[in-house]
C-alpha cells in the first residue's frame, strides 16, 4: 500500500471510508478502498447496485468528500476540501458524462457545451471557439443551434461528451454512459470514449454491464464497499 501519493497519479485513493448516517445504524458505502489510476488509463469500475461504485465515483468526481482516508484528484488532496475548491476541481479537472445526459433543456447545444467555461470565467469569444472545437471532436458541428429535445439520445450523449471535454480536464468520468441508449448508439459513445483514450485522456467508466466494462483496459470490481478484483483486460 502506497503511503504518499505520487504527484503523477490522476486519481489516488488511500484507505478511503465513506459512512452514511450517524445514527445507531450507519452504512459503510466504502470500507477501506485504495486505488490508484495513472494518467492516460482507461479504467472501468463495475459492481452491482449497492456495491459502492457510485460512492466511489462521487469521490473521484469531487462531488463528495470521504469520511476518512485520503482522496487525491489531479494532484490535489480533496479529503478536507471546501465546496468552492471542490467546485473548482470539478470545473477544471473533471468532465462528467451521465447516464441521463443531464443537458440543460432550455439551452442550445452550443450553450450546453460552453457551460463549464462559463463557470471557469472564460471570455465569450473564446468560449464559442472552444465549444466549436469540442463539438467537432464529437462530430456535432451541424447541430449547434438545436435544443436537446430536438436531438436523439445518441446525439445528446455526444453533446455531453463534448461538454466534458471542453475545459480540457485531466479526467473524464462516465457514469453508465450507455445506460439510456440503444445498442448502436451505446457502441457509438463507447467508441468515442475509446478514441479519447487513445488520444491520451484518462477515462473512468462506471458501469454494471460486463460487456461495457470490457471496453476498458483495466477493470476494477467492487462489492460491499471494497475492491474485490482489479484486473487488466
Amino acid at each position, binding site marked *: 500500500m502506497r503511503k504518499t501519493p505520487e504527484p503523477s497519479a490522476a486519481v489516488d485513493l488511500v484507505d478511503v471510508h465513506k459512512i452514511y448516517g450517524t445514527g445507531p445504524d450507519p452504512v459503510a458505502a466504502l470500507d477501506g478502498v485504495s486505488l490508484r489510476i495513472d494518467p492516460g488509463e482507461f479504467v472501468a469500475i463495475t459492481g452491482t447496485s449497492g456495491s459502492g461504485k457510485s460512492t466511489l465515483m462521487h469521490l473521484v*468526481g469531487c462531488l463528495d468528500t470521504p469520511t476518512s482516508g485520503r482522496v487525491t484528484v489531479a494532484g490535489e488532496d480533496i479529503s478536507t476540501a471546501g465546496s468552492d475548491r471542490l467546485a473548482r476541481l470539478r470545473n477544471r479537472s473533471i468532465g462528467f458524462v451521465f447516464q441521463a445526459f*443531464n443537458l*440543460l433543456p432550455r439551452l442550445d447545444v452550443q450553450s450546453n457545451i460552453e*457551460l463549464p467555461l462559463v463557470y471557469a470565467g472564460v471570455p465569450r469569444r473564446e468560449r464559442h471557439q472552444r465549444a466549436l472545437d469540442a463539438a467537432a471532436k464529437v462530430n456535432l458541428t451541424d447541430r449547434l443551434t438545436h435544443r436537446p429535445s430536438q436531438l436523439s439520445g445518441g446525439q445528446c450523449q455526444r453533446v455531453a461528451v463534448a461538454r466534458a471535454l471542453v475545459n480540457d480536464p485531466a479526467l473524464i468520468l462516465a457514469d453508465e454512459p450507455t445506460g439510456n441508449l440503444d445498442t448502436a448508439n451505446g457502441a457509438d459513445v463507447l467508441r468515442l470514449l475509446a478514441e479519447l483514450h487513445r488520444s491520451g485522456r484518462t477515462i473512468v467508466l462506471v458501469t454494471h454491464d460486463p460487456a461495457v466494462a470490457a471496453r476498458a483496459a483495466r477493470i476494477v470490481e467492487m462489492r460491499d464497499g471494497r475492491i474485490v478484483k482489479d484486473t487488466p483486460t
Partner: protein
Amino acid sequence: MNWFSGLLIGLQEIREHKFRSFLTMLGVILGVASLLAMFALTAGIAAGWRNTMQQLGGLERVGVSDKQVSLEFADLAALSPGRTLADAEALRGLPHLVSHVAPEMQIPATLSAPDGQTVSARVTGTWPDNLTVSQHEVAAGRFLTDLDLERGARVVVLGDAKVAQLWPDEHGTDAEFLGRTITINDRPFSVVGVLALYEREEDRRRREATAKGGPAPARFAMGGRSGGSGRRDMFSWKNESVIVPLSTLYHEFRSGLPETPPLAMAKLDNLNFRVRDLQRFDETLTAVQNLLRGTRRGVDDYDFDTREDWFERMETSLRSTQLSGGLIAGISLLVGGIGIANIMLASIAQRVRELGVRLAVGARRRDVFLQILAESTVIGMIGGFLGLGAGVVLLDLLGRVAPLESPPVIEPSAILISVGFATAVGVLSGLYPAWRASRLDPIAALRYE
C-alpha cells in the same frame, strides 16, 4: 460567472415562462402602480396648493400686524404711532431685502354704476406695489401707477366679482368695462383696470366644462359672493377688490374730518411687503424689525404674519396623505415580494436537476445563489417598469372617472423611487430562495427526478 451572466440567465428564464413570470410580477406591478399614482397625486395636490399660495401672495408675502403690547411697554404704548404710512416709507429704505411694499387703508363704501347696480364694498387705497405683493393679475386695462398716487387721481381697479355685481346683466369681455364711471360714496371714479378671476384649479376646469355646455358665460355664473363653495372664500378678498390710489382714498374720504393726522401719520389698516429673497427670509424680518423699532419709538407693538404656518400645515397634511398611500403601496409590494419568493421556490424545486448539473460542471454555491437572486431581481425590475406603465394608465382612468382637483404630476424622483422599491423587493424576495438553492447537495440534485 459574474453578476451580468446571472442577469442574462434570469432574463432567459423569464422569457421561457412569460405568463408565469407576469403573474409573479403582478403584485409588484400593482404595488408600483399605486406607489407611482400616490406620488403623482400628492405631487399634483402640492403643486395645486403651491399655485393657490402663489396667487395669495406666496411665501414671500409678509404682513405687519398689531400686537398686544407686553407689560413692560404698557406705559409707553401711547408713544407709538402704530402702523402708519411712515412704516411703509421706511420699508422702502430696504430695497435689497424688501422688494415691494403695499400699505393699505380701507373704508366701507357704497359703489354705484349709473348704468348698473348699487352695491356696498370695502374700498382699498394702496400703492402700485400691491399688484405684486397680493399677486394680482390685470385682465384688462392697467393697475395703479405712481402718477395716480402723485395726482390723487380718481381711478379704480375692480375685482372680477365686483364687476359682476355692478353690471349683472352684461356678459361682455373685461375690456368693455374700462373707461366707465362709477361712484364711490357719490364721488365719480373712472374704471382703469379689471382684475382676473382668481379661483382654484378645480373650479376653473369645472367652470370651463360647464361653459362649453351651458349658454351663460360662466364668469358670471361663478362670480360674486353666492357663486362659489365655501372653499372658494380663499380668493374672495381678491375677487371682491375695489382698489384706488392710497392718496386719493385719504384725501377724498379721510381728511377734512376733525383731528385728522397728516397723511404720513395716518393709520394703516394693512401693511404687507414682499421679501426679495426667500433664502434671506429671517435676515429680512430682523432688518424690518430694527427699522420698525425706529418708527414705533421703541415700542414692541407689532408682529409679522407669514405664510410659514400655513405652509407647514400643508406639508404635514401632504405627508400624512403620502404615508397612507405609501402604506397601501407597501402592502401591495410586500404581497408582490411574497409572490416572487413563492414562485422562485417553486421554480427551484422544478429545476433541482438543472442546478445539480450546473454544480457538477463547476458552479460554486455563490454562482447558484447569484443566478437565483439575479432572476428575482430581474422579475422585480421588469415588474417595476410595467408598474410604471400601469400607474400611468391608472392615473388616466382616475382622471376620467373622477376629475381630480389638481392634475397629477409624475416627478422623476417618483419614477426612481418606485422602480427602486420594486428592484429592492425583487432582491429581498430572492434572498431566501437563492440561499436554499445554493445549499443543494450536488449528488442529491443530480439524482433528483
